[in-house]
């Protein structure tokens, strides 16, 4: 509109038209139009000639007139940069209002249906798809972090050949020729090694590959895959089948070395069903009972009603003893299983435990379930099938479903053998990182060198890519079309939300290009898969929109996967127990000998290492040890004492740990030790996934690589290990060093997490009152209580009985609220920024403790201690009961944080956001535009997701309502919670869930004696231990 006028007479500044008296025409125009506005009009930047002004300025004056009443001075100072508004706004797009797209993917071994929020085209936040049975609206820590992975600056951006960047043209040229030659040779020497991709299209393409390259062999390798469970099912005649547990009907759950709430497959759905079975609300006084037998302390163990610490090598024998007891107590063995039953023996397992567990399982026949974890060998899984079948669980609490897996695929050991025999000339690796995470005795990195051509398709140019001839970058699931099948058979379309950020291709596109170079687009490939369904043409759009494919999915999947479509399988399949009879007791099912047992564990933060480059997850404290940015050799206190090693105890976040050398079978690892109460004695737990060599900038330097100790013989636990202290020490960052509610030994426990057994709760439903430090009638205020009763009054309850402490809330909050990662050094300095954290307290003896977790964000106290002490009024109370933070007003005295009894306020000690922006420019794209990015020197904390509240209020007002319907606002932590432990809503609405929960007898406020009147209250924890084991 305005063009700079050439300045001929020097820069002349003038403020009003009066200064240009010699211009009658201008006077007239000014009078006619808007003299007041014109007088204020400042044109400091515009050049001087009158004629020029008339030429360029008249239009401006017209605009001024039209806008009289606006601050014209400001208007004139707007930058002269042209913007182009939408001439035709895309349909459904309201600028500033996010859209949600349904998609689904396999994340960390678990298939989830998701709704991904898209802000102006940028995916920013993952929510669970309520219609998808695997997520039911919830997700897990890994799914929450996938948006961070999408915008990970370290992701691979281009194909690489022999370690150097190459172009897609060169890849296409190479692949075209190479695979054409191979095809001509009948595919001999081609091996495909892939991670588990439960995608019908992928399976279809693998089938096509086998057809096109008849000599090709397919192998799978995936640490997050339940390979032992699959082998266990095969042992009992259920090859290609899986057990899908239905915990909604389970009254007794025996988890044997199974972290089904944490790192196992289907954790999200199982968490929800487990929680539903013990939700003590609305007068319910029944709860399921969870027995956990495990070597390391997992969140499942923390949730256990009865927990037995047992080395992993003894779990099989323990289950054998339980089975023996079950069958000796009159339970009929299934037909053909007598040979197995005859081999079962009591062994040296704790008889009290065996008796009690067996009795409880039998007593709840048909409503009990035995779960066995990924660590246990196949025969233990097979034995669990036997028990479940004998106890009528199969068909009730355990369903049998087909596995969406490549049929007849070999294992990594098979591949290693083939390479060793010189049978593999071309190795195509899709996903995974075998050069890094393969059992050490395979020497897979070295084996790769024996193969003529190695190709690695992956997100990152990682350890395997570095050794491969070719690295082919892989698209993120939010960038690519695909489809996934959940364990229960539900299929869903993986819908992309954004074009690939880098020049990448999805794994199906790459594989399809190898089979037939002329085909390519992922969209067509996926549609081609589903075109087999008769309702495809009608329903495709609905499938994509809803994120779930309705109908009989299993049959459809079977059809497209090229296997025989089965009729609805019988509820109780035909077992064949002969395999189990011959293999029981397996070598590892019996208790191993040896001094020390090493147990490998998938890490709750980085799993097998695939998430190691995500700062959100590195900084997410381990649920039990609270370690961030590192793994360590976890030892029970007794074992640590016996071995004379340990880490500094005290109240400091940074803990100085002894470094030890662990030796197994001639292989060794130097790693710091961390004393983790609850670990089985004589066991060293080594979380996997750390110590990445080429994992990206974030992963670099985080932790120690425990893969070097794994072998094919003992992939998950190994006995006969030795441990010796070596020189040096290492600083570990555990965010919670004082792990008990007693401030000091001999002092009374503080009533922070209140807990009772189901029996006690039944006798005294109001047991929480016993925890009060001060009687309610004694709590008096000097002032009138804040009168917050009108309109909407927000509040939250957190049910400690169902909260598993998985940490999903913490990561979800991070994704929603633009919370920065600060790094290990700063975590050690106590500067981590988590708005909702999970406090973990051990109860009971140090040697055999229980653990409770408590999610804690700002409690939004009605009489908030933080508000009064702020000298500038930067934190104030809203009429709706929120404790608001005006970041822009905060000058950073930090008094509020000092005075907060919950210590939930977090300070920006440095310019964390700016540092992140500079180091990781792409991460900016993930930011939620509705939440202020906090700058250096200001305090921040949980807002109850005020941006979501406001969106819901606007939506309600648009519909002419003052009230927000219950459930219309879900805070990020509430929405993600797989156990629905967190409930948020309007306390003023007597019908709201939260208002009802606040009336529960278990409801209590932490530090109520301080008269905080906190809006977040807790429902006390109730465990249901077996009285026989008391």
């Amino acid at each position, binding site marked *: 509109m305005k063009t700079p006028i050439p300045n001929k007479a020097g820069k002349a500044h003038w403020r009003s038209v009066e200064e240009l008296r010699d211009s009658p025409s201008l006077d007239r125009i000014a009078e006619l139009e808007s003299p007041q506005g014109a007088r204020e009009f400042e044109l400091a930047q515009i050049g001087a000639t009158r004629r020029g002004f008339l030429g360029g300025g008249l239009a401006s004056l017209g605009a001024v007139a039209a806008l009289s009443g606006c601050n014209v001075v400001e208007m004139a100072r707007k930058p002269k940069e042209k913007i182009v508004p939408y001439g035709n706004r895309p349909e459904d797009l309201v600028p500033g209002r996010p859209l949600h797209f349904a998609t689904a993917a396999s994340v960390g071994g678990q298939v989830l249906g998701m709704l991904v929020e898209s802000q102006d085209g940028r995916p920013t936040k993952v929510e669970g798809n309520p219609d998808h049975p695997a997520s039911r609206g919830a997700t897990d820590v890994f799914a929450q972090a996938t948006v961070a992975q999408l915008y990970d600056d370290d992701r691979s951006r281009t194909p690489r050949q022999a370690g150097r960047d190459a172009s897609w043209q060169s890849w296409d040229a190479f692949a075209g020729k190479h695979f054409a030659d191979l095809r001509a040779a009948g595919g001999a020497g081609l091996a495909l090694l892939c991670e588990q991709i439960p995608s019908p299209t992928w399976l279809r393409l693998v089938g096509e590959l086998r057809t096109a390259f008849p000599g090709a062999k397919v192998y799978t390798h995936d640490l997050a895959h339940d390979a032992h469970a699959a082998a266990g099912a095969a042992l009992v005649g259920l090859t290609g089948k899986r057990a899908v547990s239905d915990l909604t009907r389970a009254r007794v759950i025996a988890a044997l070395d199974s972290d089904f709430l944490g790192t196992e497959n289907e954790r999200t759905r199982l968490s929800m069903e487990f929680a539903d079975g013990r939700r003590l609300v609305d007068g319910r006084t029944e709860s399921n009972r969870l027995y956990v037998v495990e070597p390391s302390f997992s969140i499942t163990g923390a949730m256990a009603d009865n927990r037995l610490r047992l080395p992993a090598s003894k779990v099989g024998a323990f289950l054998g003893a339980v089975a023996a007891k079950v069958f000796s107590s009159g339970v009929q063995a299934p037909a053909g299983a007598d040979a197995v039953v005859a081999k079962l023996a009591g062994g040296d397992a704790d008889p009290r435990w065996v008796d009690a567990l067996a009795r409880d399982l039998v007593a709840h026949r048909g409503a009990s379930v035995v779960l066995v974890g990924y660590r246990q060998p196949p025969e233990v899984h097979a034995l669990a099938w036997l028990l479940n079948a004998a106890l009528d669980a199969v068909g009730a609490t355990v369903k049998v479903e087909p596995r969406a897996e490549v049929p007849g695929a070999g294992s990594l050991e098979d591949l290693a053998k083939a390479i060793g025999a010189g049978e593999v000339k071309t190795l195509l690796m899709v996903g995974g990182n075998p050069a890094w995470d393969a059992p050490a005795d395979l020497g897979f990195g070295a084996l790769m060198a024996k193969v003529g051509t190695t190709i690695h398709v992956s997100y990152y140019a990682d350890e395997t890519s570095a050794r491969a001839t070719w690295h082919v970058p892989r698209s993120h699931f939010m960038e690519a079309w695909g489809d996934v099948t959940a364990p229960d058979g539900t299929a869903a379309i993986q819908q992309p939300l954004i074009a690939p950020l880098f020049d990448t291709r999805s794994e199906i596109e790459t594989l399809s290009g190898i089979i037939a170079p002329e085909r390519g687009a992922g969209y067509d490939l996926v549609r081609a898969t589903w075109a087999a369904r008769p309702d495809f043409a009608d329903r495709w759009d609905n499938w994509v929109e809803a994120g779930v494919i309705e109908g009989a999915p299993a049959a459809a999947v079977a059809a497209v996967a090229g296997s025989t479509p089965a009729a609805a399988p019988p509820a109780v399949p035909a077992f064949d127990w002969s395999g189990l009879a011959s293999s029981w007791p397996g070598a590892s099912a019996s208790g191993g000998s040896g001094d020390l047992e090493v147990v490998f564990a998938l890490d709750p933060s980085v799993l097998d290492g695939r998430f190691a480059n995500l700062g959100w997850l590195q900084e997410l404290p381990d649920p039990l040890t609270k370690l961030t940015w590192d793994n360590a050799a976890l030892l029970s206190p007794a074992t640590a004492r016996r071995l004379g090693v340990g880490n500094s105890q*005290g*109240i400091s976040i940074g803990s100085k740990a002894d470094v030890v050398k662990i030796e197994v079978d001639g292989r060794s690892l130097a790693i710091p030790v961390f004393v983790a109460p609850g670990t089985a004695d004589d066991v060293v737990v080594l979380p996997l996934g750390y110590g990445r060599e080429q994992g990206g900038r974030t992963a670099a330097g985080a932790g120690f690589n425990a893969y070097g100790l794994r072998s094919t013989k003992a992939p998950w636990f190994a006995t006969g290990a030795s441990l010796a202290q070596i020189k040096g020490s290492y600083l570990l960052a555990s965010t919670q060093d004082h792990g008990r509610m007693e*401030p000091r030994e001999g002092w009374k426990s*503080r009533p922070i997490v209140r807990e009772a057994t189901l029996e006690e709760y039944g006798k005294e439903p109001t047991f929480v009152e016993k925890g009060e430090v001060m009687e309610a009638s004694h709590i008096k205020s000097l002032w009138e209580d804040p009168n917050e009763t009108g309109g909407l009054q927000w509040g939250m309850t957190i049910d400690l009985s169902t909260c598993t402490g998985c940490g999903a809330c913490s990561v979800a909050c991070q994704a929603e609220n633009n919370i920065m990662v600060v790094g290990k050094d700063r975590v050690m300095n106590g500067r*981590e920024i988590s708005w909702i954290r999970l406090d973990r307290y051990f109860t009971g003896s140090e040697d055999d403790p229980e653990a409770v977790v408590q999610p804690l964000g700002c409690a939004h106290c009605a009489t908030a201690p933080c508000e*009064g002490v702020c000298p500038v009024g930067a934190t104030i109370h809203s009429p709706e009961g929120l404790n608001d933070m005006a970041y822009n007003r905060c000058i950073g005295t930090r*008094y509020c944080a000092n005075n907060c009894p919950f210590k939930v306020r977090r300070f920006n000690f440095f310019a964390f956001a700016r540092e992140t922006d500079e180091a990781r420019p792409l991460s900016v794209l993930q930011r939620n535009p509705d939440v202020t990015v906090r700058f250096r020197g200001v305090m921040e904390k949980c807002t109850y997701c005020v941006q979501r509240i406001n969106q819901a209020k606007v939506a309600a007002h648009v519909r002419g309502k003052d009230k927000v319907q219950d459930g219309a606002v879900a805070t990020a932590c509430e929405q993600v919670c797989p156990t629905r432990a967190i409930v948020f809503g309007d306390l003023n609405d007597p019908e709201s869930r939260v208002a009802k929960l606040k009336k529960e007898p278990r409801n209590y406020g932490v530090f109520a004696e301080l008269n905080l009147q906190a809006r977040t209250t807790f429902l006390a924890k109730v465990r249901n231990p077996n009285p026989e084991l008391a």
Partner: protein
Amino acid sequence: MATTVYTEADQLEERLDQRAPLVLGGNDFHSVTELVARPIDRPGNMWWPAFLVSLTLLGVYGVAVAYLVWEGVGIWGLNNPVDWGWAIVNFVFWVGIGHAGTLISAILFLFRQKWRTGINRAAEAMTLFAVACALSFPTIHVGRVWLLYWVFPIPNQMAAWPNFRSPLLWDVFAVSIYGTVSLLFWYTGLIPDLATMRDRAKGALARKLYGFFALGWRGSQRHWQNYESAYLILAGVSTPLVLSVHTIVSFDFAVSQIPGWHTTIFPPYFVAGAIFSGFGMVLTLLIPSRIIFGLKDLITVRHIENMAKICLLTGTMVGYAYAMEFFIAWYSGNPYESFAFFNRAFGPYSWAYWTMISCNVISPQFFWFKKLRTNPLFVFIISIFINIGMWFERFVIAVTSLATDFLPSSWDYYSPTIWDVASFIGSFGLFFTLFTLFVRFVPMVAIAEVKTVMPQADPHHHPAAASKHGATVAARGGAH
């Protein structure tokens, strides 16, 4: 003019029939002026080194503050439960020190404690410099220094207003009012001496500057009358401030609800501690100064002894407060408070606690012995302990309470960084730079006031007839 020569022995002899002389040696009015003005005329060999060392430390402070503003308060050792560390400890430490000056000038003035005249000027100067150091810490400790003006009630276009419920805001007013009144009080007392300096100045610039600040003082009767009234009024105004400032500083802690902070004993306990630390610092400064600048006749052992007695009194009061805190923590039955105090003494910071107890409670007990409290070297050593102890008192209060408060999950150990240390050491640079400039350019003893307590000031004084004791009886001034 012949004068009686008093000695230390005369002064320390406790007599019922007369008061001890306040000025020793054979000084008369002229020699007192010369004695005080000598350091300004000839600063001696020690001044430049002392000044340069102080200036270097001030430079350290400058670097520490500049880096702080550039990087953020994260350069300090603060962590999540301990959001106030050395900066606030130093603030309270310096404010406390800033109490002795005004106490000496105002309260002792109102109580007609004539011995104050020998030390009040230097003590008041010390107060001002300590308050300057103190004010610097809350200024730099905020996260966004450039917005600190938001704590002042300045009408602004943002319609933002400070929160008058916050003790930090009370601090802003309490300390700035205290600083202002102390400055006025000090300056008012300086006027006659500045005129003296003007009259004896040799250089034209010095004459002009002293003359400017002397506000045209000619020593007329009217001037003296106005001066005396103004001084008395300011003494009256200052007296409540001496008590209020540290009371309000203690509210920073007491008004919060952190166990270990939330105690009603804080106001009197803080005031006693402040006076204790203030006198400790006055002793630290004046014991060497009286030797270096040849002021032994004016700042006598009797002065030192009196201050030692005040230290004994206030140190014991502080010790009582420590004991009472423990008693109340137990007696209240409040589990958080009882743990907080138990943990202070036996927890991770017990080393700091016992340092504090040794320095603040045990070390002043030596002053029960006259021999010890009249030994300047010994008193000097104890005064250093008092300074250390009172710094640790604030450290113990601020840090141990925060490090282990209500929620055990959030506890964390606080350790300072090099930048915490640099800003603390650096603040001594600011303090001593100001103090060395003060002794270089301003009479460090109130010349005019000292003269009023000399025998010669008595209208009935007859130097020739005066016997050693009789003269003192006549000169006892306000002892009626």
